[in-house]
Every structure is written in structure tokens, then in C-alpha cells.
């Protein structure tokens, strides 16, 4: 009956790029051969048609259809079939009139059914976003239909949780018919949500807030230079506003008895739709928590990482030790294919009358899945199919004791505070390389905890929800359905065998999608660093640019200065020099942290009056005594590999040119700090701004422009966030022995991280003090009196 009734119909769908929308489109194309679809999607920069092709039709849901296209003509390909039956229309439920153009409006006018499945489903979406999409979305769709004089049947997808957080029966009735509904003016909520955005934007711009954000940016990036810091402050500010808005949504929802802003805005959305629909016939379909498919288009099919997955994955990895909930509570999930069938059954049935009708599709009333049962199933499955850790050991899953939400939250927050403190300590230490990774690890754990805490906050309300969603209208429709429909469009929640669904369908597909490591042994794919290294050493690259200090050698300008300065001192002077330099060290370090180029300018003054010839000669000697001793052989090898690949190699360093001169054979070009000279002696002033921080980025940009090289095809090696502008500018950034801040940035951005160290076996050199030129030792000399005269 469903196929016959929908045959030849034109059906509009919003939200086709979402989980439910994609399943809906697939089922209509596959099972209702004669219908046509109008997909209203946000066009993005590619345009609506391309978006539909990429984001909808390429999904693996269509694999079945692609291999055996439906629609009669056996020779018709999937592309031909979709080209014939699917129209893409650019539109946005977040904009008045849906942002439709003339053609879109006329397509909509010709539709027989409109299924509104677009929603902002994220549980932490900003209040105003949720209001625009969930509350005003249905209103706008109905309005657009009225404007187009459409007589189509509007099916608006909502959620069972519009019933709010409560116990007991929640029947299929309009929200305002519920005795528990607190009537609020939805228009007032829209206004206040929009105002909240303005207020938050305002609050984010107060001097105090901006100063705090600047401090945070600095803490994260260090001395990265003004452009990088300002960009960071702005992105932090936006994030702050979003957090404020998300918080505002949660608070407003809670105040009205909803688990989150999603349920709250959906509830008022239903109310607004009913109020403003005019003549448009409306049916509301309310699913509970939609989960992976039971059978259609294939068992376990799902789109996006949804709802329970992050929680289960975190549990399987042993990260989530506790999760709140009542073991006998009902966790109301419903496979997506049952929801699709329900919507199609409602569409086939047509409007129920003049008044809007509500159909709920949930499992709790007919075939409840208890929370305790779910946890047991998941636990047993993971005991049989453990996730393996990096060392190929199976991870044991914890046993949950079903504590209350408050206790879990408190536990998590305590752990997070401890990690936060650890993170602050680590961040303030001058760590590098593998030790800096320690902070990355703490940070990762902290991220995970934060996520876990988020789950507890968000899902906790759902697991504790004890409402039982009535299914009278659904079951009535089911009872009336003919056997063919029952077979092809099953929406009876009683068919679900939970143990089979959880263990045989949902978890196997989930672990595949979450890429959990389910077998010991080497990772199937090539390890990421190996792949990144190959990309870096690809012949296609143009240029490899290197920083010097801590990237190629474990040394710095202070060390090379003190080497040069002590080269001609006697031992007493040496001791005094060392003492003086050590006294100064903290101040120098602080200055260096604040601003590299100021530090260099200040520091290089010390070379004032140094004789050019002697310093240059000593610089050559320093190659053996300091640079090579402190060098990272793997780094030197990497430069040479680049050269063999035919890449140009470039050294950009704040070190003095005379210091790096002996490294010239490694590089096509060297850009270093250069000191002015005055009559055979250096004047201690830099000829131009030292190439550090943004200056380094500019230097690199100028260099690539001058040589016709592509920054996108360049590789940059550096160790510190002061090099961030340069690293961000190139196509292939490499963090070498990164200090803590860069380590965490590189980890998050997926950059190649190299740990290069000086050669084991290098002479231990605690202080960078030069050996004195060879001098007579006098003792143990010739046994005879000297009668040697040099014969010149």
C-alpha cells in the first residue's frame, strides 16, 4: 500500500544530509520506485546539486542501490536514476522563506509531501542556533509552503523528548495538551535567544575579557608573534561566545524541565508550527533516540558518530570508569529504519484530519531496553571482543556500579582539576622533545575527561529520563498495515531482539566505524609518522627550510657566544665569565621568552668591538668543538636527503652568520643574523631585523616569492611556537623536539613530530667553553736539552 500510495508523488525532504534524512532518501529511491525527490539542502560553496551528490548520494547507504539500481529499466545506472528522480534545491531552514529562489519555490509548490527532517541535533549547540533551526525551522517550512500555495502534507520530525524530563506516560499528544507543559511564548524565546547572542558578543569584547583571552592565547602559543597571537585571541573569543550560548541553551532548557536545548527548542517548534501552519496539513513524527539500522539499508548502518558511540568507545578503551543511570531505567533507542518506515507510513496515510496529529516511534513502551541490560550486553561483548592498546594488550572493561549523576560528575571534575594542575606545571617547565610529549599526553587525557564529563552532563539526563512514550497511534497504524507493508516497511518496535541488535548489529558496526583496534598485532595501516615522512621527502616538494637551534643542534646563541668569548681567556677569567653568565641566565631566559628578536638585539651587543678576523676564524673552529658535538645526526641526514631529492634547502636562523658559515655546504642558502663591522671590529648591531618569529615567516615568504617556489610544496622544520607563523605557512610543517606548547599544537594538528637527539657518544660538554689553542705542556719533554733551531 505504501508503495502504491506514494507512487508518482513528488516528495520534498529537508535535512537530507543528516542521519535520518539520508536513510529516508535511500529508502524512497530504493523501495518507492516511482516517486520523485526534491532535496532542500544548504548549498555551501559547491552548490546544492554537488552537495547532494557528495554528501548524500555517495554515502555507503546507497551501496545496495548502486549495485542493483531500482526503478524498472534494468540498464539504468545509479547516476542516471538519481539524475532523473532527484532534484536538489538550495535552501536553508535557518532563513526566512527558506532562502528559496523562484525555481525552488515552484518545485516546492509541486510537491505532494514535505518531510521536514532538518534539525540542529547537537546537544550542546548554541541556544540561538537551536532556536533558528529547531524552533523556527518548521514554521518557515510551513510558511514557504503557504507562500507557494502548496497543498502538500507536511510531516515534521520532532523528538519524543519534547515531553520533558519526567516520569510516567507521555502519550502522542500535542505538547500544549500535556498537563506538565509550562506555556511560554515561543516568540519571546526567539527574541531573547537572539538578544543573548548580542549580549554574549558584547561581553566577549570587554577589556577584561579580551585581556584574559590574550593571556590564554599567550599561554597556548608562547612568543608566536603578533599576527599568530591576534588570530588566536579572535578564535578563542568566538569559542567563548559559543560556549556562553551553549550554556544559555542548557540553562533555559533545564529551567523549563527539558533535558537540553534540543528537546526544548523542538517542543516550542512543534507549538509554533501548530500555531502558524494556517491551512497546511501537518503530521508530527517523534522518534526517541535514533540509532543504527536494524536491517535497512544494511544492518548496523549509521551516519555520523552519534549519541551512544562516544560513550561506548570511551568505555571500551577503559577511559570511562563510571556512567550515571538507573539500571532498571529504560534507555529508549530506536533503529533508524523503523523511524523511516514510520514516516513513510504517515506520508502514505496522508493527513489525519484538520488537526495536526502526532505519531511517536520509540521502544520503551512496547519492547523496553533496560539500562542495566544494555550495560551488561556491552560489557559482555567487549569481554569477548576486547579493544587492544598500543602494546597489544586487551583492555579490560570496567564494571559500572550505576552511581548517581552528581557523584560521577564530581569524580570527573576532581580528576580534571588534578590534570589541569599537572598541565599548568608542565606548561611552565622548559621541556622539549619526548618530555614535552608528556604534556601532550596529560592534555589528551584531560580532553578525554572533558569529553567524558560532557557525555555525563548531556546523556545523563537521558539515561535518567523515566518517561514512557506512548505508541497508540503508531500501533494503530501498524495494525491496519497490510502484510506487504509490514514486511517491507516494518516499524513495529517489538521486532527488535535487543541482544541481537546490540551485540550482532550495533557494536560490530560501531567498532569498525570508530576504528577501534580489535586485534593485536601491527596496525594494519602504515604508521602515521612513516606516511608523513614519505610526504615530506616526496620529489614533488620544492623547498625544505630549517631552523637551527634545537632543530639541528642542541645549542643556542648564548652557548655559541660564550664559546667564542672564552676562546682566548685564561682560566681565572673563564671562571669569572661563567659565573657572570650564570647570574644573568634567568633574566636572559625571561627576555627570550618574551620576544626573540629583542633578546637577540640585546644579546648581540656583547660582540661590540670583537675583531672580525679572529671571530671568523674561531667560528670555523667552533664547527668541530661545538656545532658538530651538539648536532642531531638525524637532522643533518634529513637535510641531505632533501638535497638528494632535489629540494632546495634553506637555513633561517637568528644565530650569527659567522657561527653558521661552516654549515654552508648543507644548504643552498643561509639567512642568518648579520652584524655590522667597523674598521676590523664588529659593532654589535644587527644589520637588519633578525629572522625570528613573524620576521622568519616574512623572510621565508619573500624567499619563496623571489625564487618562484610554492610555500604549499615546502617543508619547514622548527622547534618552538615562535616559529608558528612559518610552520603554518608551509604545506608540510615538521615539529622537531617540540617544546610543550608546540608539541600539543602539533599533536592536535596532526603534524609530523620528529625527535632528534645528539649522537650517543658525543663528548659531554656541560658548559659551552672553548678549549684554548694548543700550548706547550713543558713536562715529559725531550730527554735532551733543546738544540733544535728552526731552520728558517
Amino acid at each position, binding site marked *: 500500500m505504501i508503495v502504491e500510495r506514494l507512487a508518482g508523488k513528488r516528495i520534498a525532504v529537508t535535512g537530507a544530509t543528516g542521519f535520518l534524512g539520508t536513510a529516508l532518501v535511500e529508502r524512497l529511491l530504493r523501495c518507492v520506485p516511482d516517486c520523485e525527490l526534491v532535496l532542500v539542502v544548504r548549498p555551501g560553496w559547491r552548490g546544492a546539486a554537488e552537495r547532494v551528490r557528495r554528501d548524500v548520494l555517495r554515502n555507503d547507504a546507497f551501496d545496495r542501490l548502486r549495485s542493483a539500481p531500482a526503478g524498472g529499466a534494468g540498464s539504468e545506472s545509479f547516476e542516471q536514476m538519481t539524475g532523473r528522480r532527484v532534484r536538489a534545491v538550495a535552501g536553508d531552514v535557518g532563513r526566512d522563506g527558506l532562502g528559496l529562489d523562484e525555481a525552488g519555490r515552484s518545485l516546492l509548490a509541486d510537491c505532494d509531501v514535505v518531510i521536514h527532517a532538518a534539525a540542529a541535533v547537537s546537544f550542546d549547540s548554541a541556544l540561538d542556533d537551536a532556536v533558528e533551526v529547531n524552533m523556527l525551522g518548521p514554521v518557515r517550512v510551513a510558511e514557504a509552503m503557504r507562500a507557494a500555495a502548496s497543498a502538500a502534507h507536511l510531516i515534521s520530525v520532532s523528538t519524543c523528548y519534547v515531553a520533558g524530563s519526567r516520569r510516567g506516560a507521555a502519550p502522542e499528544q500535542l505538547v500544549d495538551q500535556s498537563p506538565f507543559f509550562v506555556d511560554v511564548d515561543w516568540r519571546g524565546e526567539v527574541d531573547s535567544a537572539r538578544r543573548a547572542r548580542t549580549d554574549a558578543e558584547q561581553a566577549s569584547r570587554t577589556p577584561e575579557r579580551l585581556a584574559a583571552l590574550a593571556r590564554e592565547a599567550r599561554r597556548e602559543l608562547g612568543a608566536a608573534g603578533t599576527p599568530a597571537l591576534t588570530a588566536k585571541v579572535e578564535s578563542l573569543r568566538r569559542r567563548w561566545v559559543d560556549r556562553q550560548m551553549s550554556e544559555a541553551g542548557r540553562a533555559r532548557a533545564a529551567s523549563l524541565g527539558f533535558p537540553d536545548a534540543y528537546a526544548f527548542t523542538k517542543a516550542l517548534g512543534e507549538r509554533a508550527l501548530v500555531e502558524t501552519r494556517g491551512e497546511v496539513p501537518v503530521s508530527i513524527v517523534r522518534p526517541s533516540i535514533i540509532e543504527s539500522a536494524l536491517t535497512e539499508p544494511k544492518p548496523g548502518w549509521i551516519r555520523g558518530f552519534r549519541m551512544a558511540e562516544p560513550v561506548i568507545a570511551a568505555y571500551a578503551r577503559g577511559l570511562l570508569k563510571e556512567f550515571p543511570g538507573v539500571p532498571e531505567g529504560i534507555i529508549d533507542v530506536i533503529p533508524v529504519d523503523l523511524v523511516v518506515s514510520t514516516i513513510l507510513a504517515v506520508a502514505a496515510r496522508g493527513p489525519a484530519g484538520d488537526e495536526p496529529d502526532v505519531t511517536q516511534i520509540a521502544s520503551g513502551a512496547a519492547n523496553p531496553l533496560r539500562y542495566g541490560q544494555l550495560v551488561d550486553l556491552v560489557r559482555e561483548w567487549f569481554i569477548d571482543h576486547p579493544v587492544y592498546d598500543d602494546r597489544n594488550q586487551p583492555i579490560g572493561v570496567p564494571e559500572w556500579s550505576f552511581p548517581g549523576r552528581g557523584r560521577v560528575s564530581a569524580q570527573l571534575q576532581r580528576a580534571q582539576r588534578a590534570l589541569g594542575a599537572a598541565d599548568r606545571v608542565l606548561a611552565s617547565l622548559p621541556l622539549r622533545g619526548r618530555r614535552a610529549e608528556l604534556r601532550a599526553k596529560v592534555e589528551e587525557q584531560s580532553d578525554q575527561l572533558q569529553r567524558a564529563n560532557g557525555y555525563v552532563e548531556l546523556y545523563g539526563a537521558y539515561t535518567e529520563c523515566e518517561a514512557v512514550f506512548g505508541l497508540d497511534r503508531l500501533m494503530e497504524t501498524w495494525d491496519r498495515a497490510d502484510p506487504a507493508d509490514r514486511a517491507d516497511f516494518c516499524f513495529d518496535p517489538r521486532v527488535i531482539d535487543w541482544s541481537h541488535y546490540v551485540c550482532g548489529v550495533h557494536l560490530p558496526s560501531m567498532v569498525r566505524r570508530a576504528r577501534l583496534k580489535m586485534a593485536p598485532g601491527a596496525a594494519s595501516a602504515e604508521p602515521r609518522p612513516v606516511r608523513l615522512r614519505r610526504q615530506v621527502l616526496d620529489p614533488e616538494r620544492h623547498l625544505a627550510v630549517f631552523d637551527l637551534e634545537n632543530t639541528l643542534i642542541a645549542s643556542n646563541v648564548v652557548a655559541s657566544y660564550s664559546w667564542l668569548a672564552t676562546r682566548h681567556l685564561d682560566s681565572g677569567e673563564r671562571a669569572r665569565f661563567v659565573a657572570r653568565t650564570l647570574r644573568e641566565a634567568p633574566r636572559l631566559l625571561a627576555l627570550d621568552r618574551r620576544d626573540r628578536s629583542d633578546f637577540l638585539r640585546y644579546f648581540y651587543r656583547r660582540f661590540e668591538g670583537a675583531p672580525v678576523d679572529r671571530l671568523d676564524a674561531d667560528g670555523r673552529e667552533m664547527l668541530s*668543538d661545538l656545532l658538530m*658535538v651538539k648536532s642531531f645526526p638525524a637532522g643533518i641526514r634529513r637535510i641531505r636527503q632533501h638535497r638528494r631529492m632535489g629540494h632546495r634547502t634553506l637555513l633561517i636562523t637568528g644565530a650569527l652568520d659567522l657561527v653558521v658559515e661552516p654549515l654552508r655546504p648543507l644548504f643552498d642558502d643561509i639567512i642568518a643574523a648579520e652584524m655590522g663591522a667597523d674598521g676590523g671590529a664588529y659593532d654589535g648591531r644587527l644589520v637588519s631585523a633578525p629572522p625570528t618569529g613573524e620576521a622568519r615567516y616574512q623572510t621565508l615568504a619573500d624567499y619563496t616569492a623571489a625564487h618562484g617556489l610554492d610555500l604549499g610544496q615546502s617543508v619547514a622544520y622548527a622547534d618552538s611556537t615562535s616559529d608558528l607563523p612559518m610552520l603554518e605557512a608551509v604545506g608540510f610543517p615538521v615539529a622537531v623536539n617540540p617544546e610543550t606548547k608546540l608539541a600539543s599544537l602539533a599533536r592536535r594538528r596532526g603534524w609530523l613530530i620528529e625527535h632528534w637527539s645528539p649522537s650517543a*657518544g658525543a663528548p659531554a660538554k656541560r658548559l659551552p667553553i672553548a678549549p684554548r689553542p694548543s700550548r706547550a705542556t713543558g713536562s715529559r719533554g725531550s730527554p735532551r736539552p733543546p738544540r733544535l733551531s728552526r*731552520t728558517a
Partner: protein
Amino acid sequence: MASDRRPRPPRPGLVLDVDRSTPPVLFHHGEGFRLHRLPPGRSRVIYPAEPLPGLADPDGAITEALLNPIGEDPLPSLLRPGMKLTIAFDDLSLPLPPMRRPDVRQRVIEQVLDMAAAAGVDDVHLIAALALHRRMTDDELRHALGDRVFDAFSPIGALYNHDAEDPDQMVELGRTDQDELVTMNRRAAESDLLVYVNINLVAMDGGWKSTATGLADYRALRHHHNVATMVNSRSFMDRHRSELHHSNWRQGAVIRRHGPRVFQIETTVNNNTFGRTGPLAALQKREWEWSARDRASFVAMQAGLKAMPAAARRRAFGSWLAPYELTSVQAGEVEAVHERTTDNVLAQHLVPVEGQTDVLTMGLPYICPYNVNSVMNPILVMCLGLGYFFNLYRGRPLVREGGVVIMSHPTAWEFHPVHHPSYIDFFEQVLASTTDPAEIEAKYEEQFATDEWYIHLYRTSHAYHGVHPFYMWYWGAHALQWLGRVIVVGGEPRAVRRLGFQPASTLDDALEMAADVVGPSPTVTHLHNPPIVMADVT
């Protein structure tokens, strides 16, 4: 009465059959030592000869040799005003360990310079004939030549290291009858007289190898520093059966025809490596003859070494200067001089040994020719064991074909970044792909030998030439081809495996592993070296 007080004459080397009463045997083990019991009834230990007496008047002997050379006119008669005189001398790789002052080179060169001064020669250059070795530092030159020579010649640029990569300072002298190129340091080649001062520590040293190798460059060295030559040198310590030496001698013939007149001075030192008395004296004694004091000082030394950090241990060993004594000095025509020198070397080193063994054990010491004041990296461990120690034979190898060598050495994954940069890359890249000498030679040698960065470091820093690690590997090519297995006791497993060898934690484990190759209850021979012993295997 007087004759009673004379020290007893040194005893020759010894082959000891191990029985149940034999005490544990000393194995050198890098910067440390180990004592191992060898399986009784089927093991033997080859002990070096005790140090021959040094010359009572070394300076007098040198004068005598210079004034009465073999097959050549007395040195003073070859010197005249206005002539170009070049004195080339062996580099840091000799002797091992470095000797106490005055070094033999200092004694000889001071006298040569005296004679030159007396003859009014004023164009004198001194060149460290280091071929592709690292440049010696000023302190090292000063130690080898003494303060007076160094201070007189270094500041005016007349004392320096050979630079085989300076295209302007190398000349081609011609080609041998087998088309081998002969090159030489320009200053040496264009001199009226080239005096070469040798320290012939082992039988491989000296002869035409001094000038044909020490003052040449890569283009000339590649004719004999290659896998084919090394596999056909059986051994390279036996000049008459060494393809390495045949090639050098052919190049020597070209030098004789087209090069400078060469006045060769060769010297030998005795086996007094660790001192007859003093903290290390036990190391050159036979274990069952250790006195209570030897035992106590050995135990104390072991405890001290154990307590020391690695760097301190390295410094302690590195500071040891051998109290070598001069045993002979020969001067004059290269080949005639070399025959006599070799006899003198062998008189100290050669020990007759009957029959080969299934398993040869050796304790590798902390030093080899290429890590003076440096680090014994894994490649040098291979070269010392399979190159130098394995080849310390005359007649046939000590170990039978298909036999096993067990070496004891920590074999740390450590490299000196200044001295051995190309070794690091050789180890990380070349050995990671293959350990076969012929394949290595064919695939990688050219690339490393002509690498501009290595050449830059060889010329301006103190790095061995880029191709040098290849030579180290070729040095062991004969042994690699000959042996069934190589096991390293107490080595860092990762590094040992990279070398293509097998790691074992104890000697017993190693012997067990060796039995897989050579069968159960194999015969074992331990080469108790250093002090140096060379087996005359019949």
C-alpha cells in the same frame, strides 16, 4: 752475583691447553674486562710473548740508523741547502694506545731536523700522512712530535695534516702495470727528498703502504681498499700473501720511478702495552701468574670501573699512555728496510699454533686505530674483531672455514659526532639495508665517497672521510666470507643485530649458539690479545 740481578729474558708466546685447573681467562671487553672459564679439554689460549727488551740507547740507535742506512746513502749526504725536504709521519692511528712522551716520531724527527739544520736545509715541511683518516688536532700533533717541533713548525704553517680532498695539492704520479692510479700529496711529490717516519706496530704497517696509501687520495686508494682485494689478502698481516700489499708495492714501483726520492725510517716497539708494573700490569701477565697485588688491583679496578659513569670510564681509558720501548730502527731504501722491520715485528708477535679451531674467541679492547680520543662505535667493533684480530695470522686462519668467532665487547650504539659522522649514516642507512660487503660497495660507496658534506667535514673539521666506514667493513670481508657465524657477548643487542651478528649475554650462551653451526663440543681457541699476538698457524 751481577747476573742474578739481571731481569730474566722475556718468554716467547705460549699456547696453553685449558684443563680443570686453569683459572678464568681475561677477556678485554671495551672499557672494561671480563673473566671467563673456557671449556676444559677442548680449549686453548694463545698468549702473546712478553715484551722484548727495549733498546738501551734509542736515540743512539736512531742516529746509527740514519748514518748507516740500508741500501741508501747516509741521510746527511742527501741533505743540501736550498733543497725541498718533506718529512711525512704516521698519524694518530699508531701506536695503540698512544705512547708516553717522547713518542718515537718525536725522537726520530728531531734527529732528522737536526741533520737538516746542520746541512742548511731551510725548506722543510712536516705532514701527517693520514690518507682519509681524520685530521689530527694541534694537541695530538704536539703529543706525537713534541713541543719543540710543534712550536717551531706549526705557527708558520710548515706542519700540517695531509688533505686528500684538496685538488690543488694532489698530483698523479702515474699508473701501475695493472692500471692502478698513483697519487701523492703535491708537496711530498715535488720534494727533493721525502723522509717517511713509521711506527710499525703490526706487520701490516710500513713499506710502500706508508707513502702509497698515507699520502694518497680516494682515487688511488680504491684500487686496494676494496672488497676483492681484502678477500684475497690472506692475511693482510702477511705481506707476501696480501693483495693489499701487492697493490701498494706496485704503486711503490711507480713512486720509485716518478716520485720523490724516499728515505724510509721504520721503527718497532715492544709488547710493553700496559707496563711491567703499575695499575694495568696484570693485563700483560698470564692469569695463573698473577700476584696477590695483581689480583687485588684487578678487583679494585673492576669495582672502580663499575662505579664510574661511562664518560669517566672513557676518559680513564683514553688517558692511558703505553710505556712502549723502541726495539729497533731501520732506515734507508723502502723495501730493504721493510723486510728487516717485519722480521723485528714478527719476533715480538709471532706464536706458532698447530691446527685450526672450530670457535675463535676474542676480547675486544677499548681501542682500535680509528677511535683514539674518540668512541669505539659498532662499525669499529666489527673492524677490530673481524678485520684486525681475525687477520692476525700467518699461514691459515686460526678458525676453520665455516667456524665461529665469538667477540666480547659492549658494542654500544654510540658514535662520535665529530669524528665519525659518515659512520652514523652508514650504520643507520647502509647497514639497515644490507651487510654484504660487495653489495655495499657496489650500491653505496661512490655516494659516500663523493659526498660534499663529508668532504667538507674531513677537510675543515676532524672527521674521517665519507668512505672510511666502507673500508672498515671491507677490512672484515675476508672473515665474513670465511665464517659461519659471528656472536658478540655482552653487546647491545640492537646494535649487534644491525651488524648482522648475534648477541649473547654470556660466553656459555655464545658457545651454545656456536654449537648450532660447528656441532657439539667444538674446539675453542682464545686469542689473548692485546698485547699483540699473531698466530703462525700450521
